[in-house]
């Protein structure tokens, strides 16, 4: 097991290195930020001074090495627009995205897994067909459209919920969270639902496929032969049998929502990381883009690692190396 962890950590480091190079090169290909930063009628001297100040006169590989050096010390540079460190900027937006993403994934799992298990348990029933129809909708209807419909219905027509932005926050450990107040939850409900629809669809699919397969297994036959009730079999045997793919998808969906809640955050003017990256792309705020993408890569690598290690918790056969043939 320790060998396995070290191996995985090395892999993660390599992925991060490759990722940082790609991101750095890619972002440099999209345009010269200096044109945005200083007025076109500035003198050559001022222009040269600015270029030298931001290190943009150096060859690309030098800029990259400098970037990498700073990266290793946790410094992602300063935003050209806000003039504050990128890490500070991203992390100030992170809690908003974090609570939104987590509630979306939780809604998807808590509702989707039982529905999917039912659909897998009684695949031919009318209810199951209804559940599958919901899941097909969740996959095929675009997020932005659902977001707009939600706003139109619940905010504009019914006036029950706010149309956008984040509610009041409460400080815990020096970080502002909005899910702790009822008012904050009112603001969060629509964007969270909007984001959760796809995850709900995915969880339904996975839970259904897993349950269908598990119901035919000898494990379930044996549990039935022992006189266990169907509910106990689903709750204890089947749920554990199907938990590995569910946890994987839960983790990866959580990660991708953290990184790419862009559409929903834009529609609901949710002040999270997604909105920040859209803004920084329009203003060619290069350090923010680079820093953000590197952080996202870091996030995914970490989540993958956590998911892999949690397999060991869920699947006892992996826990003690590979000795069980």
């Amino acid at each position, binding site marked *: 097991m320790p060998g396995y962890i070290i191996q995985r950590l090395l892999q993660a480091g390599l992925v991060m290195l490759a990722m940082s190079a790609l991101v750095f090169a890619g972002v440099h290909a999209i345009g010269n930020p200096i044109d945005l930063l200083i007025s076109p009628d500035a003198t050559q001297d001022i222009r040269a001074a600015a270029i030298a100040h931001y290190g943009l006169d150096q060859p690309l590989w030098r800029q990259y090495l400098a970037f990498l050096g700073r990266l290793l010390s946790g410094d992602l540079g300063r935003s050209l627009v806000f003039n504050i460190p990128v890490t500070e900027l991203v992390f100030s937006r992170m809690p908003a995205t974090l609570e939104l993403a987590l509630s979306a994934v939780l809604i998807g799992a808590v509702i989707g897994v039982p529905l999917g298990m039912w659909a897998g348990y009684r695949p031919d029933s009318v209810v199951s067909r209804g559940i599958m129809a919901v899941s097909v909708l969740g996959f095929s209807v675009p997020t932005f459209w659902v977001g707009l419909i939600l706003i139109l219905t619940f905010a504009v027509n019914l006036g029950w919920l706010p149309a956008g932005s984040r509610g009041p926050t409460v400080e815990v450990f020096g970080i502002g969270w909005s899910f702790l107040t009822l008012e904050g939850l009112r603001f969060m409900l629509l964007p969270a639902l909007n984001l959760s629809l796809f995850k709900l669809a995915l969880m339904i699919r996975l839970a259904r496929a897993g349950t269908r397969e598990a119901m035919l297994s*000898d494990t379930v*036959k*044996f549990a039935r*032969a022992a006189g266990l009730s169907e509910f106990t079999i689903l709750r204890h045997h089947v749920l554990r*049998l199907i938990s590995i793919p569910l946890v994987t998808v839960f983790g990866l969906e959580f990660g991708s929502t953290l990184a790419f809640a862009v559409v929903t955050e834009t529609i609901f003017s949710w002040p999270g990381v997604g909105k920040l990256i859209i803004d920084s792309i329009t203003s060619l705020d290069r350090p923010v883009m680079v820093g953000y993408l590197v952080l996202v890569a870091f996030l995914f690598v970490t989540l993958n690692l956590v998911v892999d290690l949690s397999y060991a918790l869920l699947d006892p*056969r992996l826990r003690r190396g590979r000795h069980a043939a």
Partner: protein
Amino acid sequence: MTLLQVRDLRTHFLTRAGAVKAVDGVSFELGRGEILGLVGESGSGKSVTGFSLIGHVDPPGRVVGGSIRFDGQELVGLAPPRMRELRGRRIAMVFQDPGATLNPVLTIGQQMVLAVQAHRRLPERDARALAAERLTRLGIPEAPARLDAYPHEFSGGMRQRVAIAMALLHGPDLIIADEPTTALDVSIQAQILVEMRALARESGTALIWISHDLAAVAAVADRIMVMYAGRIVEAGPVRATLAAPRHPYTRGLLDSLPATTEPGARLRQIPGHTPALLSLPPGCPFAPRCGYADATCMTAPPVIEQDGRMARCHHLLEPSP
């Protein structure tokens, strides 16, 4: 005393192509503590018979006719909750592959506690104690500690012992063992066979031992039933039946055993293969493969009962000299 009385049991799979008559008119009786071997080639309906007895035939299968009286109670048509109360408590079942039947992601203890609590309101601690006691009886060393182990941490033979211990949890009157040793090493097979026979004897549990393996059945069973295409073709005391089979199919099964042929000689396999249950020939279903078949075999063979034995054939075999 009769524990189980099965009359004309019919279990069919109602598929799109038609009714697959997996069990088609099976009748037998089983006394308390009696050990019955059920043999037949693959697909003859042995497992479906077993699942019919515990009321758990996979869809689209269904018991479409007949009667199963268990200790005076009719099981065919019994409400599912009543049937569930019997399953595991009074009728238990053990399957072929313990690696597949035990849940790989739950500990042995967790699984056994679930099985205990399915029928008894026992606190977890007492349920674990009961589980450990049963494991010890099945010869699993350090049973209390092993409750926290996972199935993959046991060898195949030990896993099957765990499964048998689970079947014994509630002291059932009947255990249906569906090829419980087929997946194990030969030496382990023999051990488990002997132990299970001893346990059944000791606790007065009746046992239906399903197997392809005539030698295993000869070693455990009091009586034997030979199944072909969903029917019982021959039944009787195990020694007498195997010493002098009356049905050509039983003869064929015996002749294909390695031990009965000269060393080095080719095994005499029964020619042909089990018929498709959707298109059974009229008359005796074994006729296309039977060396004794003639025109009369195109009509349904009679059931002939004689000195405690039964066979379903037009031309019963005479004991060979």
